[in-house]
């Protein structure tokens, strides 16, 4: 088992993603991946409308949440990154804002120092 942690952060307000990434880079966190993901209810609710086709086109119901993943060297770095994200994005306590968590990383290959 390594000391590394995998930080997973899913945000529903993608407008803040760029600010979060810039702040992380400024603090020295340079590695990470971004994926488009969809919430469970968002997926279930995504039905083609009967009468509201025009509005669904205009508002583009295919919008996705953004998932940011990054391997942190240790617990201290992880907490620092989480604080930076929360400072910019705001609290995750509200419903439909997103989620942030970490998991221990057992083995790593390819991490850049």
């Amino acid at each position, binding site marked *: 088992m390594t000391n590394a942690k995998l930080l997973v952060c899913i945000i529903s307000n993608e407008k803040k993603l760029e600010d979060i990434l810039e702040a992380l880079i400024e603090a020295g966190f340079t590695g990470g991946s971004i994926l488009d993901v969809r919430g469970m209810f968002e997926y279930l609710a995504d039905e083609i409308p009967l009468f*509201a086709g025009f*509005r669904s086109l205009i508002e583009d119901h295919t919008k996705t949440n953004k998932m940011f993943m990054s391997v942190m060297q240790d617990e201290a770095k992880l907490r620092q990154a989480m604080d930076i994200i929360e400072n910019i994005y705001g609290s995750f306590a509200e419903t439909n804002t997103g989620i942030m968590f970490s998991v221990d990383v057992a083995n790593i290959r390819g991490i850049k120092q």
Partner: protein
Amino acid sequence: MSPKLLLIFFIILSYAGVFFVFRKRSLSLLVGMEYLLLGFLFSLVDIEIDSLKPLLFPFLGWIGFLTGSQLKLKYVLRLDKKFYLSVILFTVLLTGTITVVLSALLSAEHAVLIAIALVPISYRTVAQFITEDRFVLFFIGIIPFLAMLLLLLFYFVRLTMDSLLLMVIFILVFSIISRFILTHLDDKKSINLLLVGLIIFISESCAVLGLSSLVVNFCVGIYIANFCPYRDIIFSALYKDEKQLYIMFLLLLGMFAGIRLEPAVFLNSLLIILVVLCCKYLFLKITYFQLQSHHWFYFLAPGGFAITLATDFWLFEGGARASAWFSSFLVSVISLQCISVLMSKSYEV
């Protein structure tokens, strides 16, 4: 058991049964036509239900309101003028052509109305097959609004001057009152409850005064979409249960409208189907409209708007049970929807 209680039992049973058979909240590609057929079956049971017909008006009102509440001017003005020109030409010319041909079969009034109702193309059906081409999806998405405007024009010609003025006053007064009341509420639950109340009140008032519930609510919806600060909450509330409400509407419509089981009705249906098939085929092949890159069967399904537009006029006329023209129309819509889906599916394979 009283006949009306029996009827309510039938509705609940059928709704639950069909819900179970189709196993999901979503509608099939037939956009609920199976529920209409079920309604026809109930109409064959000999129960006096004409006194319950006012139940249909709020459904039409809700569809009108939902349709109107999508029309935010800032969205509408974003689209290209050439695009609008091609959609308007498509809608108007296709309506005109179908009307001219159908006039040989039906009265001029019914020919115009069936033409207006059969020009819209089911967005839900098309979007299942064509997912990436946004030009086509926008094209399909705009047609129902134009059909609604054509229906409004049709009523302008059809109504007496007094009724016309009454309708205009109704639209203005209800728009202003609805906006005023909805703006002074600040929680979602109150807005939703009030919205339901408003739609029922507007629709039933229209029914009593012999006005179109669909058109009046459509216009009120447009006003709300552009001038009410809670427009998005209102739209979400209207949109949230669209499938369940539409299913109930189709069940009730099938039951109240009934179907005339006469050879002449089915012959007329067949002719309407042929006319629509030929006219749509020709129009979809015209390169100017830029729809020919997809298989033309995708665009054949009339969908929910067709039924809604024609139902509004059927009720406006008095809503006679098993009316010949309306029976022919409903059979044509169900058949066109089935043809479109079956052909599109086989084409996909």
